[in-house]
């Protein structure tokens, strides 16, 4: 499975990359870490005429903590995984990273690339949704910011236009009274999950003020279950309140079945993961549940 031929561009700056995209539009694909794009090309699922390699653009390689946590488009999973800033300011991102692929994949693949690729079974889009992250999308016309809730449109589909690049993702400042985690069940660790959950509870003074349950691998995009989140608000973090949230998740989710797992099995593990994820999140803020 050799890659099909293409025109290769390696711009030295973001402006140069955007100018190329303005000219080439949907004939071009952005190559960052390549861990999704290159298999897509090898398997002929996509065949771009032009490949624009942003791998050497230094301005996209930064992690900063000016406002929450911002991760640039060329920050590789491994760089984020080793970053104390990520661990301290975006604990759910840190929790997701060990689940992403395998070591060799994380050494090349990028956090933002995973978000732009928008695989419905991937961890990072679900974390963006759970944390209300903001995407910065650039074109020669300027930049726009899009909330995670508006960003993912369907299987491998986002609001990024052909002349645009997702240049960074910003995670809001993490509440000191919140706990958050990512749990999933896959056949082998590192494989795409049959069902996964990014879970967060914020419980100042022992009462849940805010909760997020963001599931992946159960629909065409990551999805939150607002009914179950609402049922948690105002409750104490406890096995009972978590079990009630899990019951609502089981009633609300309508996953598809495939060769990896039937719809019923996916729904079942979603309820198990709800209890498990919430318990892990609560344990982080000192609530044994």
């Amino acid at each position: 499975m050799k890659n099909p031929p293409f025109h290769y561009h390696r711009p030295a700056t973001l402006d140069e990359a955007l100018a190329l995209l303005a000219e080439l539009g949907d004939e071009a694909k952005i190559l960052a870490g390549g861990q999704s794009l290159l298999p897509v090309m090898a398997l002929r699922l996509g065949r771009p005429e032009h490949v624009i390699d942003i791998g050497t653009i230094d301005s996209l390689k930064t992690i900063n903590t000016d406002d929450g946590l911002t991760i640039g488009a060329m920050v590789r999973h491994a760089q984020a995984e080793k970053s104390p800033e990520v661990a301290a300011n975006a604990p759910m991102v840190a929790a997701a990273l060990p689940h992403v692929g395998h070591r060799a994949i994380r050494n090349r693949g990028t956090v933002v690339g995973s978000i732009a690729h928008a695989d419905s079974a991937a961890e990072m889009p679900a974390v963006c949704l759970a944390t209300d992250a903001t995407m910065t999308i650039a074109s020669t016309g300027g930049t726009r910011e899009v909330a995670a809730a508006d960003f993912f449109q369907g299987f491998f589909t986002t609001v990024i236009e052909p002349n645009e690049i997702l240049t960074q993702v910003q995670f809001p400042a993490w509440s000191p009274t919140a706990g958050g985690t990512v749990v999933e069940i896959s056949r082998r660790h590192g494989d795409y999950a049959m069902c996964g959950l990014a879970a967060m509870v914020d419980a100042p003074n022992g009462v849940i003020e805010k909760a997020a349950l963001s599931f992946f691998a159960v629909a065409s995009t990551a999805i939150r279950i607002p009914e179950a989140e609402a049922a948690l608000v105002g409750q104490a973090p406890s096995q009972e309140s978590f079990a009630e949230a899990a019951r609502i998740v089981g009633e609300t989710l309508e996953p598809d079945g495939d060769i990896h797992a039937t719809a019923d099995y996916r729904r079942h593990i979603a309820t198990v993961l709800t209890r498990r994820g919430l318990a892990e999140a609560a344990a982080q803020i000192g609530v044994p549940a």
Partner: protein
Amino acid sequence: MSLPSVHTPLGEKLAINLTVNGESQSVEVDPRRSLADVIREEIGLTGTHLGCEHGVCGACTILLDGEPSRACLMLAVQADGTEITTIEGLANPDGTLHPIQQGMYDAMSFQCAFCSPGFLMSTVALLRDNPTPTEAEIREELSGNLCRCTGYQSIIDGVETAVKLLGSATTEGGK
């Protein structure tokens, strides 16, 4: 790493510079070619094996600037200016095996050995970063490499044997 802008039209080649096992190499490559193909066919080092060619099996794992990477999931042009270590770079030039190769040899970690270069390169990085891993850590770090012969246990045993060999080498070096 700052590199100048490059535009290579369809069908044309791009000159890149790589350091492979300590030797600098200048090669002209078609941008569509994978790093694995260029290592095998242009540089002539066929120890880097290609199994699936889409990032699943791990047989093509090499060290890119010291970090394990899948050589089939990289364009060679993306490796411009990097340092690469392949399986051929492990043993001493006099033929003495690297302690990790010796450990795996002693534990009979190889059967058909098609997957072995990838396992060995992943293990080099694992034991560099974590010289005394637990069995669970070994299994986790090698989870991206597939073997269809051994059932994995002998490979885990080989890594543990290598840990001992490397430990005693360090102790001797300290004397």
